[in-house]
């Protein structure tokens, strides 16, 4: 589908370029040991978000469903979720460098998914059988992955700040990192939001699954439940002060890597592909 002369993928390329620009801008500022402009970073990321939203919207219009039908779309949607959350969290908590880290992650997710053409295999239109609840379940689940992506970023920043303070290397990138307690606070909030969203998503999905037990592949069921359970256990342990500081940060990082890797098997376990929809979503 085309809007203003650009295909959906072209809009997504524009978004990826914006995220890449954020990455370059932040890196240059750090290399020059200068504090980066929070406003400039926010504006670049917001512009990328607008382009990506347009691209995903065009996709959704073409497939008559939420654009999460193949690995490419899943990566794009996850990056979009992380960015949308950053736009809220970044404005509220004003954590320095969070914009830089978010644009790094989003640049990687969007560029890799755009460059890997095979991930954008055509999928059938109306993938979710026209059932809005299943679509809502899937979108919510992926949005929670976006939250966990941001959690992985704040966890990385926590580990970097801890390393900086322990090793007494305080200049360069380290001098701009937020404080340990601020990072811990925002991580816990993200963990709560992610678990709540994922629980909600699984709740919605389970209603559909109970009506038709054969509708969900066992592998998908097990992997999704395992990811949810793992994050729920981490949240429980953190709230009981049993999993804190660096161990919590490492756990969140490893869990997100595992959750990201689990997207492949989950996507592969979907129903066999039917002939492609008549609308074109060919890569540019």
């Amino acid at each position: 589908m085309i809007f203003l002369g650009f295909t959906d993928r072209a809009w997504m390329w524009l978004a990826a370029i914006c995220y890449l620009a954020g990455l370059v801008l932040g890196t240059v500022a750090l290399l020059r040991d200068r504090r980066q402009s929070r406003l400039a970073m926010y504006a670049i990321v917001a512009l990328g978000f607008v382009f990506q939203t347009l691209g995903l919207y065009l996709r959704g219009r073409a497939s008559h469903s939420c654009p999460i039908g193949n690995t490419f779309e899943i990566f794009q949607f996850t990056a979009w979720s992380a960015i949308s959350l950053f736009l809220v969290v970044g404005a509220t908590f004003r954590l320095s460098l969070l914009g830089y880290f978010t644009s790094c992650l989003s640049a990687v997710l969007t560029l890799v998914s755009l460059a890997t053409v095979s991930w954008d295999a055509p999928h059938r239109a109306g993938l979710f059988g026209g059932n809005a609840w299943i679509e809502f379940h899937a979108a919510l689940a992926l949005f929670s992955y976006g939250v966990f992506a941001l959690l992985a970023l704040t966890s990385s920043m926590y580990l970097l700040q801890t390393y900086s303070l322990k090793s007494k290397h305080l200049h360069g990138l380290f001098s701009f990192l937020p404080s340990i307690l601020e990072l811990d606070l925002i991580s816990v909030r993200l963990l709560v939001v992610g678990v709540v969203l994922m629980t909600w998503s699984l709740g919605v999905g389970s209603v559909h699954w109970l009506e038709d037990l054969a509708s969900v592949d066992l592998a998908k069921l097990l992997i999704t439940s395992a990811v949810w359970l793992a994050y729920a256990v981490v949240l429980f342990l953190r709230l009981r002060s049993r999993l804190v500081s660096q161990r919590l940060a490492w756990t969140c990082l490893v869990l997100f890597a595992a959750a990201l890797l689990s997207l492949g098997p989950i996507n592969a376990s979907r129903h066999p592909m039917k002939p492609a929809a008549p609308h074109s979503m060919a890569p540019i």
Partner: protein
Amino acid sequence: MSAPGPILFLLGATHHTAPLELREKLALAGDKLEALRRELRALPDLREFTVLNTCNRVEIYGVAAQPEVVARLQSAFCALHQMDPALFERIRLLLRDGQAVQHLLEVAAGVDSQMVGEAEILGQVKDAYVAAQAQGTTGPVLNRMFQKTFQAAKHVRTHTAIGEGQISVASVAVDLALKIFGQLERCRVLVLGAGEIGGKTARAFKSRGVGQISVSSRRFEQAEELAREFGARAIPFDQMGEALPEVDIAVCSTAAPEAVVTHGMAAAAMRRRAIRPLFFIDLAMPRNIDPGVATLSNVFLYNLDDLARIADENLALRQAETLRVRALLTEKADALWRQVAPRINGDFPES
């Protein structure tokens, strides 16, 4: 100073030109500052003046109808301080016109300070200007010059690294605490040892808004004395271990020859704290905190050498930045001089 006609000048002495013992003689302590102002007001043809008096400099910025006025001013200044004019000429700083403008900009931006990049000097320049303005000794030249100087100094501090990083041990410790806790209002500080350095660090924390301070010392009366200064609580030294889990920052500066905070004590404290980090600042020599404490998760330990090294690194960064700042200020000084020069001759453009 031989060219006839009105001039803008700066006359004074700074830590760059005069040793400490002479600066002490020139200091305008007590009534001397007011006495100097009276002398200056009485000088005919001195149209405007402002006196900047800090521990490292005495500077008089002025606008004179003739260059000779400066010589008369110098005589009055030396007479007030009972200093041999020949000696003063050897240590004086005398600049005119654009150079005086450039100097004021560098002073206000902290480039000319002994502790490069310190922010206090800007406040002192402002105070000097406000006092002069209140006494009616400034006019169109100095008003424009000082107001533009404040803008330039602010710009430089915002857009360069001249003021970044703390350069005193106590301030570095406070900065590190901010990197750990973000805000200090809800932090609790325990000062172990009621000596000078402990008191200084506690004062630095208090000035940055720390909510609660406790003091513990082997000599309880000393702890009580320091505690009174901060409205703090004195803790008997043998109960220090029990207080440790309750505090966020522990500043140690006792004269004990061995560690007063052991690895075991810190580990026990951390088990009872759960989430919040614990920041140890060891300012004692020999050290008061077992270095092994640093291996504990969520515990941060800095000793005197660490803090001094960070302060030195910050100072080196500021000094490296001075070249860039001077270049920036030269541009601004040239622009400002072009604005101010017509006013010296009595020409007052609208802008």
